[in-house]
C-alpha cells in the first residue's frame, strides 16, 4: 500500500459561503417558463426532418425496402439506406476502447435486434418523413431470435461493467459455507429495463463545409465530440456541440449512439441542416438499457449471526455484437463483512440492443438481490434485519481489506431507524395491519455507491470590474449542475454567486469529464476549485509583489480571498479589491486553470464509497395483493454536500427509481419475436405521483479528507440502491411471501397465498 498524504492546504485561502447553501436551481425559471432550449427546440434555417425506420424483427436481414413508394410521398427529399449513404471514416463496428458503443449506421442489411435502424427518411416536414418511413414497408428474411437469459449458450465475459474482472474472491467460500451453522441459497431475477429519459435522444445538426454545428443532449461532450469527429474524419475541434440542458440521461446519453450519428449522416447527404428525434418506441433498442439478470446468492452464517461466506453469482444478457455486461455481483465486494467472498458472472448473447450503464449499473441489480438475501439470512438467524446488518458491518472494505476513506453508515442506520420508528418492528412477517385491515410491512436496505472521480478541467477569469468567469463543459441532466457547480465556482473565486458568470454545456469549453458514475460534481467541481485557486494565486502574486498594494510582502503569510477582496491572513485590516489589483497592474483580466483527476495513491490506500440506509413501509391488500409504498425514509452519507436542496432531490429521485425497480419497471419482451411489447410510457410502468405518498431523505454529516480536496462523493445513483431491497423486504414482512422475481407484482402474491 503506497503512502498517502492528504492534500496540503494552499498558502492562500478562499472563503465563501455558497457551498452548502440550499439554493433553488438557477435554471428553474427557464425550465418552468419553457424558455430553456433543449436540443430539439432548435430550428436552423433550411432544416429538414429525418425519421428513422426501424426493424420489427430481432434477427435476420432486410430483403426489401419500398424506397420508391417512400420517395414518391410528397415532401420526402431523400432516403438513406445501406445502398445510399455517405461514406464514414470509421467502421461503426470498430471498438478501440471499452467506452466506445458499437453502432448501427446502415453498414449492411443485417438485423441484430428489434428497433435497429434500417433506413432514414428525410423530408421537408416531420409528417412527410414519418409517413415515408411507414411506406418503406420492409420485408425481411427472418431468423430465429435469441431472447432472454436462457436464449443462448452462456459464457464467462472478459470483464463486467467498466472493466472489472468477471470474478473476484477472497477467503475460502466453500469452507465458509461448509462450516456455517446456517446456510441459505436463493435465486433472484431482474428484468430488462430502459432508461426512458423524458427527452428522447435528439440531434439538430448542420455542416458548414467540413465543420459541424450540433445541438444534442449528451452526458459526455468531449467524448461525443471526438467520437463524431472520428466517424467523419475531421478534427474534434471542428465539431461544436451545444448541450445546455438534458431532459434526463441516466446513462443512456453518456456514449454517442447510432441514431444521432445517423442525423449527422443525413445532413452530410442532403447538404441541409437536419433534425432527428427518436420516437419513444425507438428508445427501446439502439440507445442502451439495463440487462436482465438472474442472480444466485449463497450465504453462510455462524451461530452468532456473523456471515461466514457470501457467494454471489450473476447471469446477464448482452447483445450479439458488443460487450457490456451488467456487473451485478460486484456489489457484494463492498457491503457486508465476511471472511470469504466470491463473485462471478456469466452471460448470454441475445438479439437485443447492447445494454449500457443505467443509473447505478450493477449496484441497482445486485443490491436488490443482496439486500433480499441478507434479509432472508437474518430471518434464518432469527435476527432483526437491521441488527443483522449491524452485526455484519464492514469496518474495512470486505473484498480488499482497505480502510474506508470515510463511512458514516452506522449514523445512517441510526438516524434512519430513529426517524422511521424501526424499534417497534415485529420480527415475524404478516403481524401488522392498519385500521383498514391492510397488511403492513417494514423493510430496510443498505445503500452504497462508489465515490468516483474522472479527469476534468476548468478555466477561471477574474475581471477588472470585479466580476469573475468560470468555464467548464459540464452537463446539466436535471441534477442541478448549473447551480451546484456555480456555487463551487463562487467560493473558488471568493465572490458572490451572482458575480460569477458560469459558462457550461458546450464542447468548446474545458472538458468537464463525463457526467456519469455520480462523479460529475466531484470531477467538474474539483477542476473549478483548482482553477479558482490558480487565478487567486496569480492575483495574489500581483498584489503581494507590488509595493503600492496594501498586501505587499504578504506572499509568505498568504492572503485570504473573500467577497471580491484579498486580505492579509495575518492582518485582515489590510485588503484590496480584485479590481484595484488588476487595474493597477494594467490588466483587464487574469486567467487561471484547474484540473481534476483521481489520486492514484489515495485510490490504492482507501476504499471510497458513499453509504446509506433506506427504510420502507408498504401496505398490501391481504386479498387482492395490490401493493402501495406508504413511507420511504433514506439516510445517506456522501461527504460534503454542495447544495442540500438539490441533493435531497437527487435522493428522492433515486429512491423513487428504487421503488420503480422493486414494483414496476420491466420491459415486456415477446419470447418469440424479441420485441419489447410495452415501448411507451403508458405501459412501461414507473411510479406516478399517487405511488409516492411520503418520502424523506436525511443528509447525514460526513467529512472525507481523502476523496478529493472538497470531500465530495456522489449522490446521483446511491438512492436507487438500498431502496429497491428495502421495499422488497417490506413486502415480505407484510405478507410472509418472498418474491424473488422483480418487479414484485400482485399476481405473485395472489398465486402464492
Amino acid at each position, binding site marked *: 500500500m503506497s503512502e498517502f498524504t492528504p492534500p496540503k492546504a494552499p498558502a492562500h485561502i478562499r472563503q465563501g459561503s455558497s457551498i452548502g447553501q440550499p439554493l433553488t436551481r438557477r435554471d428553474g425559471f427557464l425550465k418552468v417558463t419553457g424558455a430553456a432550449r433543449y436540443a430539439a427546440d432548435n430550428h436552423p434555417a433550411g432544416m429538414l426532418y429525418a425519421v428513422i425506420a426501424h426493424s420489427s424483427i430481432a434477427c435476420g436481414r432486410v430483403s426489401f425496402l419500398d424506397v420508391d413508394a417512400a420517395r414518391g410521398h410528397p415532401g420526402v427529399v431523400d432516403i438513406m439506406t445501406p445502398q445510399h449513404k455517405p461514406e464514414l471514416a470509421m467502421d461503426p463496428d470498430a471498438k478501440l476502447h471499452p467506452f466506445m458503443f458499437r453502432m448501427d449506421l446502415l453498414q449492411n442489411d443485417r438485423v441484430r435486434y428489434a428497433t435497429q435502424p434500417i433506413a432514414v427518411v428525410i423530408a421537408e416536414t416531420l409528417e412527410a418523413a414519418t409517413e415515408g418511413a411507414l411506406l418503406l414497408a420492409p420485408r425481411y428474411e427472418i431468423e430465429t431470435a435469441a431472447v432472454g437469459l436462457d436464449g443462448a449458450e452462456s459464457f464467462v465475459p472478459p470483464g463486467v461493467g467498466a472493466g472489472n474482472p468477471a470474478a473476484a474472491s477472497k477467503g475460502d467460500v466453500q469452507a465458509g459455507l461448509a462450516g456455517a451453522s446456517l446456510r441459505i441459497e436463493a435465486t433472484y431475477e431482474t428484468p430488462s429495463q430502459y432508461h426512458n429519459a423524458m427527452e428522447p435522444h435528439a440531434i439538430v445538426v448542420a455542416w458548414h463545409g467540413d465543420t459541424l454545428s450540433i445541438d444534442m443532449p449528451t452526458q459526455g461532450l468531449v467524448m461525443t465530440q471526438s467520437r463524431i469527429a472520428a466517424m467523419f474524419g475531421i478534427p474534434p475541434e471542428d465539431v461544436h456541440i451545444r448541450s445546455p440542458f438534458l431532459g434526463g440521461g441516466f446513462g443512456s446519453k453518456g456514449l454517442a449512439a447510432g441514431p444521432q450519428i445517423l442525423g449527422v449522416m443525413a445532413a452530410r447527404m442532403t447538404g441541409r441542416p437536419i433534425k432527428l428525434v427518436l420516437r419513444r418506441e425507438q428508445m427501446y433498442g439502439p440507445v442502451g438499457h439495463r440487462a436482465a439478470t438472474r442472480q444466485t446468492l449463497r450465504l453462510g452464517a455462524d451461530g452468532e449471526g456473523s456471515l461466514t461466506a457470501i457467494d454471489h453469482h450473476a447471469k446477464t444478457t448482452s447483445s450479439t455484437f458488443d460487450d457490456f455486461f451488467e456487473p451485478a455481483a460486484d456489489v457484494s465486494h463492498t457491503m457486508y463483512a465476511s471472511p470469504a467472498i466470491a463473485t462471478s458472472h456469466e452471460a448470454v448473447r441475445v438479439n437485443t440492443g447492447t445494454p449500457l450503464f443505467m443509473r447505478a449499473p450493477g449496484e441497482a441489480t445486485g443490491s436488490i438481490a443482496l439486500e433480499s438475501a441478507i434479509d432472508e439470512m437474518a430471518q434464518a438467524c432469527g435476527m432483526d434485519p437491521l441488527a443483522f446488518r449491524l452485526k455484519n458491518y464492514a469496518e474495512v472494505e470486505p473484498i480488499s481489506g482497505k480502510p474506508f476513506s470515510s463511512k458514516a453508515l452506522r449514523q445512517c442506520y441510526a438516524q434512519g431507524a430513529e426517524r422511521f420508528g424501526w424499534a417497534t418492528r415485529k420480527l415475524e412477517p404478516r403481524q401488522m395491519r392498519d385500521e383498514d385491515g391492510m397488511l403492513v410491512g417494514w423493510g430496510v436496505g443498505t445503500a452504497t455507491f462508489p465515490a468516483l472521480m474522472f479527469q476534468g478541467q476548468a478555466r477561471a477569469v477574474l475581471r477588472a470590474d470585479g466580476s469573475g468567469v468560470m468555464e467548464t463543459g459540464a452537463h446539466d441532466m436535471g441534477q442541478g449542475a448549473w447551480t451546484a457547480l456555480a456555487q463551487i465556482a463562487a467560493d473558488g473565486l471568493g465572490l458572490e454567486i451572482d458575480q460569477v458568470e458560469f459558462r457550461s454545456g458546450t464542447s468548446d469549453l474545458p472538458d468537464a469529464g463525463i457526467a456519469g458514475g455520480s462523479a460529475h460534481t466531484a470531477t467538474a467541481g474539483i477542476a473549478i476549485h483548482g482553477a479558482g485557486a490558480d487565478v487567486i494565486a496569480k492575483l495574489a502574486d500581483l498584489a503581494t509583489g507590488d509595493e503600492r498594494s496594501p498586501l505587499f510582502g504578504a506572499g509568505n503569510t498568504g492572503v485570504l480571498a473573500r467577497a471580491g477582496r484579498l486580505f492579509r491572513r495575518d492582518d485582515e485590516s489590510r485588503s484590496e479589491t480584485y479590481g484595484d489589483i488588476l487595474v493597477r497592474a494594467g490588466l483587464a483580466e487574469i486567467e487561471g486553470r484547474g484540473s481534476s483527476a483521481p489520486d492514484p495513491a489515495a485510490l490504492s490506500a482507501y476504499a471510497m464509497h458513499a453509504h446509506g440506509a433506506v427504510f420502507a413501509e408498504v401496505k398490501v*391488500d391481504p*386479498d387482492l395483493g*395490490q401493493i402501495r409504498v406508504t413511507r420511504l425514509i433514506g439516510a445517506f452519507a456522501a461527504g460534503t454536500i454542495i447544495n442540500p436542496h438539490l441533493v435531497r432531490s437527487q435522493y428522492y429521485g433515486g429512491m423513487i427509481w428504487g421503488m420503480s425497480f422493486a414494483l414496476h419497471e420491466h420491459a415486456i419482451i415477446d419470447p*418469440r419475436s424479441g420485441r419489447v411489447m410495452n415501448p411507451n410510457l403508458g405501459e412501461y410502468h414507473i411510479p*406516478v405521483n399517487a405511488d409516492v405518498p411520503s418520502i424523506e431523505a436525511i443528509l447525514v454529516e460526513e467529512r472525507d479528507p481523502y476523496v478529493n480536496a472538497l470531500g465530495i462523493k456522489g449522490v446521483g445513483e446511491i438512492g436507487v440502491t438500498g431502496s429497491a431491497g428495502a421495499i422488497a423486504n417490506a413486502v415480505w414482512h407484510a405478507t410472509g411471501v418472498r418474491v424473488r422475481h422483480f418487479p414484485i407484482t400482485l399476481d405473485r402474491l395472489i398465486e402464492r397465498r
Partner: protein
Amino acid sequence: MNRFDYIRPATVSEAVAAASVPGSAYLAAGTNLIDLMKGGVVRPERLVDVSHLPGLDGIEHFPDGGLRIGALVRNADLAHDADFAARFPAVAEALLSGASPQLRNAATVGGNLLQRTRCAYFYDVASACNKRTPGAGCDARGGQTRLQAVLGWSEACIATHPSDFCVPLVALDAIVEIEGRSGRRDVPLESFYRLPGDTPERESVLEAGELILAVRLPGTAAAFAGHARYLKVRDRTSYAFAIVSAAAALQIESGRILQARLALGGVALKPWRTRAAEDSMAGEITGPDTFRRAADIALADAQPSGDNAFKIELARRIVVRALSQAAVGTPKRMPALPASPFAAVSGAITYV
C-alpha cells in the same frame, strides 16, 4: 402520419353522411385515435371531427331520476357533476379511476365507449392481429398474456375492453342512443359490444356512419345510489388500466338484498355483466357467503387464455370485496383514490 381528409360537419346529419363513406372515422378528443394513427395501427382516409357538433355536450336530468349524457361531455365534467355523482356514484368513481386528470379533461363519453383494446399485439403493427387484419391470426396467443381475457374470448382474439366507465354503466342498464343514416335507435350498452368469436374486427353493433349521440341511465338505476361502488385493481396506484375491476350495486332492505347489479371489467372484450350472479343475491342476506357464491357464479365460465389464471381468482376476490363495500354503503365523499383498494387508507396525502 398518413394523409387523410379532415371534415368538420356542422350538424349530426352532415356528420353521419360524411362518416358513412368507407374509410371514415369519427374524431372527438382523439385521446385514443390519434395515438393509433401515429402508430400506424389505424389509417383512416377521412376524419370526421364531431368535437364541435352542437347539443351533444349537456347532461339532462329527468324527473324520474334518470339522465341523458351527451356524447361529447368530458369524462371529468361528468364525474364532477354533483347531481350526477350523487345519483350514480359508482359511475363517477369509475370515471375518476380511469386514465389521468389530463386525459379525463379531454376524453369524451362517446369516445370512452369506443376506445380500442389495449392489447399490446393490437398496437404492435408487426404482430398478427385479427382485429387489425381479419384472418391474420392472433400473436397474443402464446405471447405475453398476463392481462388478457378470461371470459368470452375466442381463439381469434383474447383481448379485453379497457374502459372503467362502461363497467358500472352496463351494470346499471345504460342505453346508448345512436344516430345513423336510417335514423335513430337505442341499444342497451350490454348488447352494444360484440364478443370476438370469429370476427373480432367487429367490435360493436355500430353500422358504418353511425354516431353515438348520448348515453342514458334510467331512473331505476338511481335507486342503487346508496350502495354502489367501483373497485379497480391495477399495477400502480393511478394511470393504469384495470387488471380486473368490478362495479357492484345493491338495493338493501333490512339487511336483505332486493336487487343486485354486478359487472366486471378487464376480463373480457366487453364490460361483463353477470345476471346469474345478480339473481343469486336477490332475497339473500348481505354477507360473505352470499357474495362468495355470487363470485363463483360470475366466474363459473372463466378460462385462462394463457398465463393469466390468477385473474380468475383475483376477479372472485374483487367481486366479494366490491359487493362488501357496496353493502357497507356509498361513502359520503368521493375517496381520494377513487376505486382503489387503498381508497380508505387515511392520513396520507394522495394525488391522482
